């Protein structure tokens, strides 16, 4: 890692279904190029995609910060949006506030946050109704890297 912090930040536009998923593809591409274990990369891609899609489906805009730390990988997604009034309820599988037109596309199944939970070692959500949400995910690779 040459002592250099590996950090990236990508903008996510709300309601921009055209480009949805591109940020997570970038994250996946970077990890793949750095030689991380494919199963680990897929897990990160799922968590990143779900966080990205939450911004696209619910928020006005957001940013995905992605950092490779010595022991783990950290993804922080912050958005300007409606916020989550009841995080425990939102964590329940099957619970969704997505509108009908988004559900018709196959989103809003209420699996986003549970999928993030399953594919991360730490998931912290802080939200202010009417302002936005910050999702912090820590994912540890299966083996320590050189």
């Amino acid at each position, binding site marked *: 890692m040459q002592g250099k912090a590996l950090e990236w930040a990508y903008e996510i536009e709300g309601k921009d279904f055209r480009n949805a*998923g591109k940020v997570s593809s970038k994250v996946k591409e970077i990890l793949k190029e750095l030689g991380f274990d494919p199963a680990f990369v897929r897990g990160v891609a*799922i968590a990143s995609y779900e966080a990205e899609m939450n911004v696209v489906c619910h928020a006005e805009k957001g940013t995905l910060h992605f950092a490779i730390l010595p022991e783990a990988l950290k993804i922080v997604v912050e958005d300007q949006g409606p916020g989550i009034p009841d995080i425990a309820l939102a964590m329940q599988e099957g619970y969704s506030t997505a509108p009908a037109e988004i559900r018709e*596309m196959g989103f809003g199944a209420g699996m*986003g946050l549970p999928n993030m939970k399953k594919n991360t070692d730490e998931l912290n959500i802080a939200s202010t109704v009417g302002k936005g949400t910050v999702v912090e995910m820590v994912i540890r690779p299966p083996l320590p890297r050189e």
Partner: protein
Amino acid sequence: MKLTELIRELALTVRSADKGLDREVKGGYASDLLSDVMAHSKEGDIWVTIQGHPNVVAVATLRDLAGIILANGRQPDAETVQRAEEEGVPILCTPLPTYEIVGRLYRLGIHGQD
């Protein structure tokens, strides 16, 4: 089984990424909920869905799926085709409904679980 064999056996129409058809299909998954596919599909799966919008390409790419079969005569949006070409994701179409095409895939040895 390779995608090319599936295309021949099941008379699928190729709509994108005709250079990626040499890929081996390891299994299959059928669902129209994208998060469900993200959570439960496996690398090398063929994915059967009726969703033809561009986001299916992102899911297939992120999950390393072998390709997408659009069932029930559904056609991909023009933008979906464009993104699929860029990402090299084969999109195949069939007039058959999901249940029927999945049954035929299974009969060809494409299973959902080991």
